[in-house]
């Protein structure tokens, strides 16, 4: 029971921690004008106090619940997908669009159990080229580029 209750309040606790951190940093003197009446920190501090208070309220509310809030999850796949997406976000502007798109598309499909490798690579390549062509030529939106090819 205790384990379940502890799991239930994780959200509230994390929110409380973040809110408290932000609140304390808003009082630090690196923000000059923090003491001003209608100053830069005026509104954020109202919000952050609310944030902290609400987090406490949520912890209390969730503590009193009798059932687990979070359902069973398939953690392995989830973490893989998160890692893939995260890597794509970071690498998109470092490595460029074409490699990241291809690798991500294929990787995501593979993780989600699309195991027909030749078809997977084919579709990944086709998708990558299609998007690249449409964005570059038809739409003229700049795609993230590889730094050393750009002059």
């Amino acid at each position, binding site marked *: 029971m205790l384990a379940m209750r502890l799991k239930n309040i994780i959200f509230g606790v994390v929110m409380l921690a973040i809110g408290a951190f932000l609140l304390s940093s808003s009082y630090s003197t*690196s*923000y*000059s*004008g923090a003491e001003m009446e209608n100053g830069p920190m005026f509104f954020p501090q109202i919000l952050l106090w609310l944030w902290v208070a609400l987090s406490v309220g949520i912890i209390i509310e969730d503590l009193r619940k009798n059932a687990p809030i979070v359902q069973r999850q398939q953690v392995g796949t989830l973490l893989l997908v998160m890692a893939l997406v995260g890597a794509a976000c970071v690498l998109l502007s470092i490595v460029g669009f074409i490699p990241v798109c291809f690798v991500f598309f294929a990787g995501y499909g593979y993780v989600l159990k699309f195991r027909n490798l030749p078809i997977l690579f084919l579709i990944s390549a086709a998708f990558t080229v299609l998007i690249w062509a449409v964005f570059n030529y038809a739409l*003229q939106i*700049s795609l993230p580029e590889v730094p050393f090819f750009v*002059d």
Partner: protein
Amino acid sequence: MKMLRFITVFICACTLFAGSQALAAWPDKNITLIIPYAAGGTADATGRLTARFLEQKLGVKVVVKNVGGATGTIGAAEVARSRPNGYTLGWYPPGPAVGIPHMRKLPYGKDAWQPLGMMFEEVSFFSMAKDAPWNSVDDVIAELKAKPGEYVMGSSGPGGAVHLSIYSIMKGLGDLQVRHVPERANAEILKAIAGGTTHFMAAQGSELQRFDIKALFVVDDKRSPSFPDIPTAKELGYDIPRITNWYGLFAPAGLPADVLKTLSGALNDIAHDPDFIKAGTQMACTVNFRNAEEFTAFYLEQYDLYKVLIEEAVGSPKE
């Protein structure tokens, strides 16, 4: 032996290739013009207009990239850190170049730029609602001196040209005490004036034409050709610094001399092109050209002017 020969040939080929690149005339591929504001604003419209004419003059595509955020500084920073080879240019108003550096720490400074040419410039008109009860500057001064802090001046953001314009006007008219209510864009100031919560602003000629406001004077050396009946501040005896909202083309500092010459020449031609002037007028923007040298001098002078004004109007620069 074969390997060595291959390497030698390879190195020669590379050198020749690199050399030919250096010899290739600029420009030989697309130019990116970074506009540090969202699509649809005046900065964007004037920038795209200039880009179109540049394309015709230079013979390569000039692709516009909108990089908005932080009142123009994100886009400006991107130009500042790009390579000064003439393929990345920036199009800005005073804000990111001469204003905001005095308000917070930025990844670029006074020497980050090679100004290429100023294309548009809007002078400020001291404006208020059309049905406001004052018809002369003396009336305004008397009223504001009698009721300090009662009235409100509007701006489109602290430290911007519009803010510093109205601030220096109030100061020049005799240190008149007004409250300052900033808005997010000029359109909002006009709305506030129409709604009665703001009373004074520094408006541009186009706004004077389109909206229900009247102007008592213009801050310029001469009267505006579109409004010949409006006197200048100087004529009325007031010494107010000439703060304008301008748009110009910038490159990162360190541009090669030949590229600078080509660009400068192109901008000169464009600014005198009657089609360009006509397009600008249709957009209600005034074409006013300064070439690279003039613009560089102007830029430096504005940089120092804004430093002083911002310190007074907004407060000292924060870290």
